[in-house]
């Protein structure tokens, strides 16, 4: 039985290759999932033919009706084509449901041909339809998985980029680094910021670090503690820490919370902080005479 379950399907796919590809594309456009706004006809046709060829090779490579498994070696080519097509389409903005409809649109042309060929063998007809239907369903599910994996990867990448962007350690001058903090600080971020800062001190042999809080709206005890811990670690490394840009509100909060900054230098603005930092490494900003 396993022979016959794929025999007719395979014959149809091989003999009517171009017709099925055309019918598949027609079905896609009938259902409005062809997305010619994102893809040229040529590209769509190439992808469709590629999928068809991979499907045929998959069936030839030993797919059988009762032991169908998309993760087996026989389907490796089809999987890679699917991944390629899905990634290509998702990067151009095709939605997962359009992608699924695109794959599922292959059913109709094959089913009609099977019906014509096997009109006199209803049980075999059911068998073959059942087989090819499961295969195509599995493709659709697989596409969805690829979609999700791709999206996860993008989210991950963006999160990394955001984290990097939100804690930029900038070399302002020889031996002077600045770390402009923006937004809210939580423990995880504070840890990341500190690691980043200390590594940069080591790499750039920085002697003074200005931690600028101008962009920080509110400070709670935890954040204040993180700041002081960061300053202590910077000192242990052998560099000096200047905290600048403490707003009046934050200053009041810190005093009310009883946070003792100890020996850490604080400056009202990053401008004063920079002047102080340059002074410590032996530079000065001098006004030109004729201005």
């Amino acid at each position: 039985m396993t022979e016959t379950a794929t025999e007719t399907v395979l014959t149809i796919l091989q003999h009517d290759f171009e017709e099925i590809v055309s019918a598949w594309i027609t079905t896609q456009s009938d259902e409005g999932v062809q997305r010619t706004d994102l893809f040229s006809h040529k590209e769509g046709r190439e992808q469709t033919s590629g999928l068809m060829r991979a499907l045929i090779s998959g069936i030839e490579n030993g797919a059988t009706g009762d032991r169908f498994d998309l993760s087996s070696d026989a389907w490796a080519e089809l999987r890679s084509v699917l991944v390629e097509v899905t990634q290509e389409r998702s990067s151009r903005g095709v939605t997962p449901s359009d992608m699924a409809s695109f794959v599922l649109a292959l059913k109709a042309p094959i089913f009609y041909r099977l019906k014509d060929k096997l009109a006199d063998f209803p049980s075999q007809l059911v068998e073959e339809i059942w087989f090819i239907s499961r295969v195509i369903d599995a493709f659709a599910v697989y596409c969805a998985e690829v979609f999700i994996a791709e999206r996860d990867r993008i989210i991950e990448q963006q999160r990394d980029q955001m984290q990097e962007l939100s804690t930029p350690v900038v070399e302002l001058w020889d031996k002077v680094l600045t770390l402009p903090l923006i937004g809210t600080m939580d423990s995880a971020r504070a840890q990341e910021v500190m690691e980043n800062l200390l590594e940069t001190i080591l790499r750039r042999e920085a002697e003074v670090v200005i931690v600028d809080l101008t962009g920080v709206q509110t400070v709670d005890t935890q954040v204040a503690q993180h700041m002081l811990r960061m300053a202590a670690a910077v000192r242990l490394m052998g560099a000096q820490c200047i905290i600048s840009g403490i707003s009046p509100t934050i200053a009041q909060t810190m005093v009310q919370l009883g946070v003792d900054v100890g020996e850490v230098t604080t400056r009202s603005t990053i401008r004063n902080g920079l002047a102080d930092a340059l002074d410590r490494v032996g530079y000065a900003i001098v006004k030109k005479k004729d201005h």
Partner: protein
Amino acid sequence: MSAASAIYFVEGVLLVAIQEDISDTDILDLQEALSERVVADAARAVVMDISALEIVDTFVGRILAQLAGVSKLLDAQTYVVGMRPAVAMTLVELGMDLSESKTALSLTHALRDLRA
């Protein structure tokens, strides 16, 4: 006194490079030897290079702090130089800020500071 931490006397300053694999006994020996050398050589400073240390525990942290305290009593300034980021973070987490010691990025920086 283990060879793992030889003490050099240069320009009135005692230099020690702490080795990566220093043991608890070694560091106790070092503390004793250094204390004696500060007096014997009339050293004005002790510079400890800990750039080889990749991890510290409370014991090592405490000895480093004690060394600074002892040196201070004997009229020598302690410098801890070359601390790695991970070590700095650990010491801060442990609440040890080595406030008795000065710190510097490297031996060169400490010597520059001492000559000034």
